[in-house]
Structures are given as C-alpha cells and as structure tokens.
C-alpha cells in the first residue's frame, strides 16, 4: 500500500491578509522557526508519505523559496518527492475561470497530475493545519472500515462566532458521516469540526474530479460530499491532540501566545517521539545572551542576539534585541532588528523589520500592531 499527499497552499489566504500579502498561507511563519506548511509536510513525511504535490495559486515565490528541492523534509527524491503544481493555464482556452478558488476547482485544475499518481491512496490536506497527527493510523482506519472518504475531525466546544467559521460534521455511533453543516450561523455547543485533512483512494478521487468536471461542480462539501453522503461510506477519524487553524490575525496572535504559555501544547506539537517537525535549515548560530540579557517565558529560535529584555514573546531566527530594549508580548519574525532603548508591546513584526533606537510601539492583545515586511521605523 502506498500513499500520496496533496496540499492546498493558498487556502484561507484572506483570513490573515496582512501576513499573506506577499506569501501563501502555506508560507506564513509560525512558532519561531516554522512556516505553516512545515506541519503538514512533516505529518506526511513522518507517516512515510514521500510523494507530495503542493497545489499553488498565486504569490507562491516565498513558498518555492522555502521548499527548494525539498531536502530539508527528506523530499528530494528520485521517485516521488515534492512537486509544486502551479496553476495550469493554457494559451488557448478561455482563462476566465482557470484561477480556482475552492479545493475542488484546484483539484479539477490538476486533474492531469492526479491521474498520474501511482499510489493507492491520497491524503488531501490544507496547509494551515497546525497539528502533529499520525496519518498512518488514519489511513489504517480508512482501509479497515472500507471507507470511500475519511475526514479528520476534532470534538470541540464552539460558541456562535466560532461555529460560523467551521464546517461541522455529524456522524453516527459507528463513525459514518450522516450530515455536514458548513459555516452554520446559529450553532452553539459541542461538535466535530472538519480539520481539512482527508483520506481517499486514488481511484475514488479521480472519479470525484472527473465527475466534477463533467457536472461543473465547484464545492467539495456541497457538490460532492453532501450529494453522496447517504449512498457512500464517508467516515470520520477522530483526532484529539492539539490542533489550530488560523482564522484571523488575532487568532494567529492567540495561537502563537498559546505556544509560549502552554507546555502541553508544545509537547503535543514538538515533543512526540519520532515525529519531529522539519523546516528549512538556515544554519544560524545558536542564540547569544549578553551578560545584561533578561528573558522570561519566551520561545526563541537559533541565530538571535539578545542584549535587552524579552518577555512573553516569540523570536524567530536571526532577531536582534538591542541594549536597554524591552520586548513584551511580541512576535518578531526572521531578522527583525531592534536598536537600543526600544520598547515594543503586542507587536507583530514581519521579516527584516528595523526599529531604530528609542522608538516605542504598542498594540493590544486584541489588536496586535502589525509591521509589514522590511519596514523601517
């Protein structure tokens, strides 16, 4: 039995417009040294899925730069490995509709590649699923239950606002899906939410895609799953580890802060034996703390140089904190530079931001202050 992976890299881009202005959702930095796609890629690689296609749509230079040849995920392979599937646009066809917006449209667009997948099963995953899940177990579950389609879900308590941005999956006591409620406007309570990780046989996936092309279907949930839910054996796979999906900038900030404040979340993401999270290697030196450095409750990547004070913050690789500078509740991306006597509170600084001496910037936990890539203050 062999399994291939397909990752949607542009899904949910408009959730965090600031961070995805110059990049795909897949290449949004998260957790000190990772990009969101690292979690999905690592899940696949750790489950021996080594034939991975990444479907892109737009803005994907940063993603290609991050992935390179796939070496850092052990996906630089003679056969299989990682492959980027850019939009397939022909010179002749009417291209008005060729830039897809949904997963199903994306799949229709790469129909050609799907038909060439040699593997028996396919795992479809969004790029913004922050979790460490054993896909092998999910695939095993799929095969044992003779399922047509298996969707990973997690049981969570939702308020009305949270329900509105989730797809809820109803299943019977055997785990067979009976109904799907997409973005319900008036739901409150406990429900299984769709984690956007799916297992399907390559044959059935091909059938879905060809059918969708023939009937011009656009939505995987509405046009495929809901239409067939009674006839087909669609099942859930319940995952109960840590899971986060970024739905807004505030949410991004909140999920980042959770990483600092909750040791068990870090353990569920990074501490599982034999399931490390891989990312692009940058060969930064280990982090240097000067004699005057003061650091509390923070996550810090390699390559930082700390001369000042850091509290409740996340420092990405190559960040420099100047003398007398105080950084609190901040997320500072790769190579952020702060001069001397700067104070920062609730700031998200994108890559290569420079903050000169004696500047004071503050946002709020509910509305972090965002500094765009390369800004100089």
């Amino acid at each position, binding site marked *: 039995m062999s399994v291939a992976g397909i990752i949607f890299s542009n899904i949910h881009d408009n959730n965090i417009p600031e961070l995805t202005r110059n990049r795909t959702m897949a290449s949004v930095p998260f*957790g*000190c*040294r990772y990009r969101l796609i690292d979690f999905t890629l690592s899940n696949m690689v750790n489950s021996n899925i080594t034939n991975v296609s990444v479907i892109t749509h737009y803005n994907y230079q940063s993603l290609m730069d991050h992935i390179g040849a796939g*070496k850092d995920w052990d996906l630089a392979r003679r056969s299989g490995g990682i492959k980027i599937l850019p939009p397939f646009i022909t010179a002749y066809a009417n291209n008005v509709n060729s830039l897809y917006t949904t997963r199903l449209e994306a799949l229709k667009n790469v129909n050609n590649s799907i038909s060439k997948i040699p593997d028996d099963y396919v795992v479809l995953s969004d790029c913004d699923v922050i979790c460490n899940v054993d896909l092998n177990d999910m695939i095993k579950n799929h095969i044992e239950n003779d399922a047509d389609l298996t969707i990973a879900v997690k049981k969570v308590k939702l308020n009305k606002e949270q329900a509105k941005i989730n797809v809820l999956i109803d299943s019977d006591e055997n785990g067979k899906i009976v109904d799907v409620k997409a973005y319900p406007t008036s739901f409150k309570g406990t429900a299984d939410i769709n984690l956007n990780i799916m297992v399907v046989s390559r044959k059935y996936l091909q059938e879905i895609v060809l059918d969708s092309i023939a009937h011009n279907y656009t939505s995987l949930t509405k046009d495929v799953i809901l239409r067939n839910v009674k006839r087909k054996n669609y099942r859930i796979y319940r995952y109960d580890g840590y899971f986060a999906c970024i739905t807004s900038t505030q949410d991004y900030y909140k999920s980042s802060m959770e990483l*600092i404040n909750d040791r068990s979340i*870090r353990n569920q*993401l*990074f501490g599982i034996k034999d399931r*490390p*999270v*891989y*990312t692009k*290697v940058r*060969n930064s*030196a*280990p*982090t*240097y*703390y*000067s*004699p*005057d*450095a*003061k*650091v*509390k*409750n*923070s*996550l*810090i*990547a*390699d*390559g930082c*140089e700390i001369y000042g004070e850091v509290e409740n913050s*996340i420092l990405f690789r190559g960040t420099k904190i100047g003398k007398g500078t105080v950084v609190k509740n901040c997320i500072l991306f790769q190579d952020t530079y702060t001069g001397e006597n700067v104070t920062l509170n609730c700031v998200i600084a994108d890559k290569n931001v420079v903050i000169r001496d004696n500047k004071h910037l503050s946002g709020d936990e509910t509305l972090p202050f965002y500094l765009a890539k390369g800004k100089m203050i």
Partner: protein
Amino acid sequence: MYKKKECVAMLLAGGQGSRLYALTEKTAKPAVTFGGKYRIIDFPMSNCVNSGIYTVGVLTQYQPLVLNEYIGNGQPWDLDRMSGGVMVLPPYQGKNGADWYKGTANAIYQNLDFIRRYDPDYVLILSGDHIYKMDYNAMLQAHKSSGADCTIAVLEVPLSEASRFGIMVTDETGKITEFQEKPKNPTSTKASMGIYIFNAKVLEKYLIDDENTPGSSNDFGKNIIPNMLNDGMKMFTYPFDGYWKDVGTISSLWEANMELLGENPKFNVHDKNWRIFSRNYAAPPHYVGDKAFVSDSVISEGCEIYGTVEHSVLSSNVIVEKGAVVKDSVIMSGTVIKAGARVEYAIIDSNSEISEKANVGEPKEHAKGIAVVGSGLIVASNAKIASDAMINNDSIDGVTIIQK
C-alpha cells in the same frame, strides 16, 4: 569521469584526542561538540565551502562511527556533489596487507589515488581539531603569487608560548629559512597552524620518498616539512591574525566555548557572510521559562530552561529544571539538569542526567579543575562530583554514577 580540480583539501580527522578523555571515549576528536550546535570538524569543512573548495577528503581512523554518520553524504555543507564533494577516507586493506595510518604524512600517502583522480594543481592539508574561520582561497592566491612549493599558515604567538608549537623562522619576504619543532629556545614567534598548501606534484614526490625512508615517523611536521626545507624548496608562510584555537585539551575546549560569551565575544559565529554549517536535527525553538534566569550564555534549539544558566554554553535539547543552576559550564546535547542540581565549572557530555540536588564541580574561583562527566551517565541525586573529577564509563559504581 572526474573533473580536474584546482585544489583538493585533505582533512586529517583520525586523531584520538586522548587529552579530552571522557569526551573522546566513543567519538573521534573532530566530532566533539563545540559552541552549542557545532562539532569541531564543522569549522574546517565550512571554511572549505566558504573558500570555494568543494572537494574534501576526510581521513578517519579512531572511533569513526559518530564522525562518519555526522558527515554522511556532506549535504549540510553543500558537499554532496556530482563531481568532488566530501569523501570519508578510512584506512584500508591493500594488496600488500593492511596498515593503519602511521602518521599524518602516511595518511595522505595512502590516499594519493584519491588526490590523483582530480588531477589537482594544489593540495590543502587541514586538521580537524582547530576552531577558526579562515579564507583558504586567499591563502591559495598568496601561494600562487609567491610561486612557492609549499605555503604554511602561521599565527603570531607570544615568545613564552612558542616552545609549544612548530616555529617558522622567515626572512622579511615571508620565505621560510628554518623550521623548529617545539624548540626550547625559539627564535621566532610564527607558529604553524597545521594548515599547508602544497603543489600537488611536489607533495606526491615527498610523500613517496618519505614512505621509502625507513624509520621515518611519516609526519608532516617532523619529516616532510624539514626534508623539503633541507632540499632548498621554496617555502613561504601565510600570516593569519584571526581567532584560532587548538581545542585538544579539556581546558582549551572549555576556554574556546567561553570565548563565544561576554559583552564582545572573542569569536563570532553570527557572521552571515561566513556561516558555519552543521548537521541539523529538527529541534524546536528553545524555551525560557517564567522563573528562569539566563545571562551571558549561548543556548541552542530544543533547550528548555526553567532554572538559572550563567556564563555557559548549552547544546541542543538540554533541559535545566526549576531551581537548577548551571554556571561556567559546557552542557552537550540531550543532557538533563534536574531540579535543584548545581553544575559549576564543568563539561557534561551528551545525553547524561544530573539528578535532583546533585552537585557537579565547584565554583570556578576555588575549583581544582574542570569537572567532566562523560556521555550517557546518570549522576545520582544528592551526589557530589569533585571539581577535577573525570567521570566516564569506568566510574560507574551503581551508587553515585549509574549507567543510563
């Protein structure tokens, strides 16, 4: 098909490093951890790559497993190449029997075939036990423009310390007139750094001659260099004035680690134009806890710090629990310092455990020496390890020192 290379580097990495005792029990010296995430060999290897030399033979002999595994296919240094790249060269069995590498010169002699494949004009000889950043290409250019047969990199040392080194006496142009191996009364302060560039043909001739000389110690410093000088070959020094450290002893290894610390570290590894490459193991970012105190230290990825770390260098995945104190120490990867334990002026090798309230070493001011704990050992709770103790597998007594 082998492409011709202008320069091939040969890295001598077979040394046992017996003066590092517990740290080299199961590891060759070049594979000893340094500066958090590095191994000693990362420095010459990165220097090669940063200098544009992409054909490197690594000569191994003593305890090669860790070193071989670490080098692998050379990918971390960009040395997985279609032509050239890194090649591990262990001693081998030949038609006329098998020989260990008898000396530095013999090691290269046994691998002349490797060098010949690339038909190089120059051969760069390096050793795998020094910490420094150096542009070998600049040295090669100097070698070419002086028209020398051999160029030796030298470092100015204080006259009082000159007797520990191989000393080069030169004329004003840098041409070597005399070589003194560890002289009692040195007349120059130019110490050999063990970095040589030879014209390939000259090197080959001298290696073959040396091999045919009975009683030779087959050593560059003792035989090849003096022989060439006696024959009147053109030999030049290449002055180097950056940071360079031989980390052959426990105290110099400790010192070199400490030189990464302070307000203005003596040795800077943060230079983005001269990156030091190393093999990475996908560790998460390091976490510094709420009650933790970290100052004047180097901390690598995967560490979790809940206690106090002062003036220390921590490799990846080190855990310092609540109330534990680490001071003036070097802690290698995967080691756990349990709650309330105290580690001062010590080197603790990888994957060891210092149990609750144990004491390793003493404050630097009144310590007799550096306490060393080897890898994979457990120091029992409340145990006390003396300041100059050398704890290795032989020290396991099941009471204070337990096998993991």
